[in-house]
């Protein structure tokens, strides 16, 4: 059975609807049937939402029947990561603690995509509270990579990446704190975007590390990802860190013209890379040169310190953000506890998985008396040095290209017992997260074994347009 969404994009769905080739309701029904049939293979969705999807699709159809504009995402089947709140639709964060949590409000990104005519098919699996790089930390079982079912899809947004790769959705929303959109995009062979910090409202995104959390889109094409970002981006008064900067028309920036674009190649990012990954990335760099880019070497000297700084800052913030899951408000309380203190301690011990506990413990430790200056403050200073590295590089170049992950998708269970090697594999994505700059993964070929590899494109704060233009021109030239 092939997907009813095969070959469809946001723009072609809108054109098909307006030309009355199919209705939004037909497309939603077919997509849901396909998702129900295919999901057991990958476990990408934790919840499918037929009622919500059909009512959104019917609203699009009636707008078209009445001659109204059905919106830029009209009838587009979309999957949403299960850390993003959907009113009345179970949102688990991949955690046993929230297995029955039904949010009382929608995230701003969800409101915006539904107002634009988008059809939410369901909520996707992820690492518990978005903590992980393989989607093996979900309380509801791992996600399998649709490209190779014995391998991980990457994480933490593994379900959202798998849904698009498996063609059960056209686009999806993920969240990225240290690479959780870009790395699964690269593992599954699709596009994944981490916008500038503050570009998309975090209202309704379950907090992991507030100074690093982003909502970001996945799509099979750069154009689809750009269009979805255009819909969800922009100031939101419900998130005081959301940016005021106007949102450019990203799809309009995809003019294919890269003549004279200056691209930097950070030498630090090519040490310790699997050789096939390095070769594919360098082939992509060659293609960018052919498209008219000027490529030069640059230095990002503090790169080797990024993982250490990140795992202090992210866990410190997480230890505070996850304090709210205490057995009072959020669905789960340990049974048979008689004191307040036991209620907190037992609920959290039974509810959180190993990785969450490890990060809560590390975060609590680095913030505890006597260690704050040595760990947390030092990490924030190193974060500044990393951000400065990028600022200096962007005085010389318009964009930076790099690998996304040191290796392609690995086998389920292969790295799960070694947290440090899992953390270290986030090295190429963490730096951009710490600096808050826009970065994305665009597919750049496959290894001999057929495993996808991603090329990372990073640009200046709020210059998503240049990032998309490079990725789109490369994508068209390489197909």
């Amino acid at each position, binding site marked *: 059975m092939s997907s009813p969404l095969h070959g469809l994009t946001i723009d072609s769905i809108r054109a098909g609807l307006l030309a009355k080739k199919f209705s939004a309701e037909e497309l939603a029904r077919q997509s849901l049937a396909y998702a129900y049939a295919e999901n057991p293979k990958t476990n990408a969705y934790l919840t499918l939402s037929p009622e919500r999807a059909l009512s959104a699709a019917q609203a699009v159809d009636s707008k078209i029947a009445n001659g109204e504009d059905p919106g830029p995402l009209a009838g587009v089947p979309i999957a949403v990561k299960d850390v993003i709140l959907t009113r009345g639709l179970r949102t688990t964060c991949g955690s046993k603690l929230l297995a*029955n949590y*039904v949010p*009382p*409000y929608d995230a701003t990104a969800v409101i915006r995509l539904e107002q634009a005519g988008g059809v939410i098919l369901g909520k996707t699996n992820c690492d518990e509270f978005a903590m992980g790089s393989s989607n093996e930390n979900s309380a509801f079982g791992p996600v399998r990579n649709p490209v190779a079912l014995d391998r991980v899809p990457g994480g933490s947004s593994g379900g959202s990446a798998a849904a698009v790769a498996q063609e059960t959705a056209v686009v999806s929303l993920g969240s990225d704190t240290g690479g959780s959109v870009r790395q699964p995009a690269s593992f599954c062979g699709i596009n994944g975007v981490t916008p500038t*910090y*503050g570009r998309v409202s975090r209202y309704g995104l379950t907090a992991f590390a507030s*100074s690093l959390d982003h909502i970001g889109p996945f799509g099979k094409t750069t154009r689809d990802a750009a269009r979805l970002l255009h819909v969800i981006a922009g100031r939101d*008064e419900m998130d*005081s860190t959301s940016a*005021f*900067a106007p949102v450019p028309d990203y799809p309009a920036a995809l003019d294919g013209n890269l003549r004279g674009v200056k691209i930097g190649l950070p030498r630090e990012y090519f040490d310790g890379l699997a050789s096939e990954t390095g070769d594919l990335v360098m082939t992509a760099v060659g293609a960018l040169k052919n498209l008219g880019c000027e490529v030069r070497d640059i230095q990002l000297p503090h790169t*080797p*310190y990024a*993982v*250490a*700084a990140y*795992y*202090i800052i992210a866990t410190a913030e997480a*230890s505070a953000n996850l304090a709210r899951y*205490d*057995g*009072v*408000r*959020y*669905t*789960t*309380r340990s049974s048979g506890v008689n*004191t*307040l*203190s*036991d209620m907190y*301690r*037992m609920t*959290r*011990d039974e509810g*959180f998985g190993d990785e969450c*506990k*490890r990060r*809560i*413990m*590390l975060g*609590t*430790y680095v913030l*505890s008396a006597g260690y704050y200056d*040595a*760990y947390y*403050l*030092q990490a*924030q*200073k*190193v*974060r*500044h*040095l990393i*951000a400065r590295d990028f600022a200096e590089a962007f005085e010389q170049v318009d964009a930076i290209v790099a690998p996304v992950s040191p290796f392609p998708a690995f086998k389920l269970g292969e790295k799960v017992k070694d947290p*440090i090697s899992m*953390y*270290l594999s986030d090295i190429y994505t963490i730096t951009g997260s710490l*600096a808050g700059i826009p970065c994305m993964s665009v597919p750049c070929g496959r290894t001999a074994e057929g495993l996808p590899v991603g090329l990372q494109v990073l640009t200046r*704060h709020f210059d998503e347009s240049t990032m998309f233009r490079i990725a789109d021109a490369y994508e068209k030239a390489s197909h």
Partner: protein
Amino acid sequence: MKISEQDVRRVADLANLALREDEVARMARDLDGILSHIDKLNELDTANVEPMAQVLFDAEETATLREDRERPSLTNAEAVANAPVTGGGYYKVPRVIER
């Protein structure tokens, strides 16, 4: 060892986590490995570097202020709907103070 099992128990208390005995030993081992890697940060001289707590962009000081106007909030029923134990519109917890 950078962190002992006793340290792990103290931190678990601060974090309100009741770790089981087998978890304490494993946690000590895992945290020790991570903290050893983190020590790398001490190679850098950061005496003249400002800490960066947040990515900040230029904006007017009052840019994030808005008019204080009334708007609908969650109802009481919505606010307590996800709680495991409620009574009379409140969250219920085990007794805190003995008479």
